[in-house]
């Protein structure tokens, strides 16, 4: 099985990244790659040669967590009320299959049937607080056998191939980045770099904040997943990125202004190696780059993303070529910046 498939099958809602972390840890151990897990749960793969070789001391980072839900209360009828963890559009929630808690109890997000809704209710979008999770139990007592308040809830959405070149699944944001990082760690011929698999990005770049305090860095490249909005109803100038058009280079987002030198290098490397690329046509949103760039006395940062349609929903779509080229671009970037002294 593809590592990416294993990674997206794992549940890892922000603050509950254990399953993803265990998976990555066992893969790292298989290859005898040294690592440590810090207080917040970030995996740090520190390469001692980075310090020996000196600047630029480079970090590659991707976040392990995904958006999801958390159980806030169990109603007398056994229905679960929930809150969102990370940014989710309320409208993608209804009728979704979910897994609740560490026992992965299956459930469905339900709402009042349409014929029971008042005319004015039908006109409004269903909000998260109108919805509940139905795990098929008779009442609160039975529900408590399976779940408790505070349990994390993740979408159930196995990876599927779509067409000839696409995958559908949840949590490509940012398991795609994790998969790329893992592959590069196993790429023997690369110059030394540090790597971090971070936690709690979706709730405010929290893991990356302490990674930046822990490591003495000159440069950080974030491998991310960003929104592709080349879909019906979106005008060309409203599209953040397009599926199949190659890795997405950020110039600026709400959290960071990308270092111009790193951006120039990424562009040059892409052009010299005939790697298609695109610019992120939107300067909102944030990434771990924001937290890392402001750590200690400042770190140069850039962001390369795999484009994905419908991110932060149970069914996002990525393109294999984009994945391949993103990996290739990051790999060549590492060679380029670390290769020349």
């Amino acid at each position, binding site marked *: 099985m593809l590592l990416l498939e294993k990674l997206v099958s794992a549940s890892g809602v922000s603050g509950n990244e254990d399953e993803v972390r265990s998976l990555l840890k066992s893969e790292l151990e298989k290859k005898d790659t040294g690592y440590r897990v810090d207080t917040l749960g970030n995996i740090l793969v520190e390469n001692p040669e980075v310090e020996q070789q000196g600047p630029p001391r480079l970090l590659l980072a991707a976040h392990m967590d995904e958006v999801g839900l958390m159980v806030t209360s169990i109603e007398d009828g056994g229905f679960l009320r929930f809150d969102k963890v990370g940014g989710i559009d309320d409208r993608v929630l209804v009728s979704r299959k979910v897994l609740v808690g560490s026992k992965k109890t299956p459930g469905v997000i339900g709402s009042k049937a349409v014929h029971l809704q008042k005319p004015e209710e039908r006109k409004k979008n269903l909000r998260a607080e109108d919805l509940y999770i139905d795990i098929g139990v008779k009442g609160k007592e039975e529900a408590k056998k399976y779940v408790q308040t505070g349990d994390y809830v993740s979408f159930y959405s196995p990876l599927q191939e779509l067409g000839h070149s696409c995958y559908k699944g949840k949590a490509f944001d940012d398991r795609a980045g994790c998969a790329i990082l893992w592959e590069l760690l196993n790429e023997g011929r690369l110059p030394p770099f540090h790597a971090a698999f971070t936690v709690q990005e979706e709730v405010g770049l929290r893991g990356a904040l302490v990674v930046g305090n822990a490591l003495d860095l*000159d440069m950080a490249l974030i491998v991310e997943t960003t929104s592709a909005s080349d879909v019906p109803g979106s*005008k*060309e*100038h*409203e*599209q953040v990125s397009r599926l199949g058009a190659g890795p997405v280079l950020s*110039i*600026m987002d709400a959290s960071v*202004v990308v270092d111009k030198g790193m*951006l120039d290098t990424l562009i040059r490397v892409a052009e010299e190696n005939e790697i298609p690329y695109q*610019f992120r*046509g*939107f*300067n*909102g949103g944030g990434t771990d780059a924001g937290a890392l*760039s*402001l750590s*200690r*006395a*400042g*770190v*140069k940062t850039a962001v390369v993303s795999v484009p994905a349609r419908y991110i932060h929903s149970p069914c996002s779509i990525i393109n294999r070529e984009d994945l391949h080229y993103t990996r290739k671009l990051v790999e060549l970037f590492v060679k380029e910046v670390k290769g020349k002294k």
Partner: protein
Amino acid sequence: MEKLLKELTAAYGPAGHEEEIREVIEEQVKDYVDSCYTDTLGNLIAVREGAGPRLMVAAHMDELGLMVTHVDENGFLRIARVGGVVPHILVGQRFVFSNGTAGTINHEKIDELKELEWSKLYLDIGCSSREEAAEKVNVGDVAVYDQEFKNLGQRYLGKSMDDRVGCAVLVETIKRLPRQLPQEVIFVFTVQEELGLRGARTAGYALEPSYAVAVDVTRVGDTPESLVMDVSLGKGPAVKIKDSSLITHHGVREIMFSLAEKNGVEYQREVLERGGTDAGSIQLTREGVPSGVLSIPCRYVHTPSEIVDKGDVENAVNLLEQLCLYPWKEV
């Protein structure tokens, strides 16, 4: 002062692209300080050496701007804001890129002003095709307000008084300081303040100051039917008590009040309900830094036409000079 302020406000330097303004400032101060260098994020750091504690004085170099997000087939540019720019003040305004390419903002058809969203705005640089436009600008390029500096008599009118007037106050103070200072004073011209007080944070970490004072503009409440704000133009610089980024350090604030009173500098007490300054991020670096803010009252902050008062600017220099000469205690 007028010549300096005119030169500083004219220099290109949106948040994240401070190279040009940094060069202008470096040229102004380098002969008056012991050392001058640029850090990782691009802050310009000018050091006046001295024994004793270390006072950090900060003003931000960056200004607001618009970033190109897309070039359409007819040569129109779509844009996103860099810093706190609002759509309704943009329509009809001229903007200019670092390479001199100029243009004006307008919008798709709308029925009401409230429909004026970012996705409806575009920048027209006078090109008729994507190819033609691509020769002048790229996605990611940033344009700034294109507005001339004017002397209105007792007041100055221009773009980016926020915070080039603060930079001018620092530059002028640096030039006036005597050879011997009772402590080390590090002047920092910061980057990316308008995006969240970013440059000040990493500079604060690196420099480990004993005390910090930021110099920035503040809003006023002296215009027709304005929001209530107890600061006016022309009544002297303001000593900040609170804004949304910090409550100034009591001890630092008291030193500022007493120096102003002792030296006959008219000043105002400032409580700003919304807005932040570099001092907010400096005070939270490492184990905390006692920080204060010297504010220059400014009308129409973040618009292309900001107004400051000559007397306020002059008195801000006087007070900052006193702050540098004051013997700060070791922490």
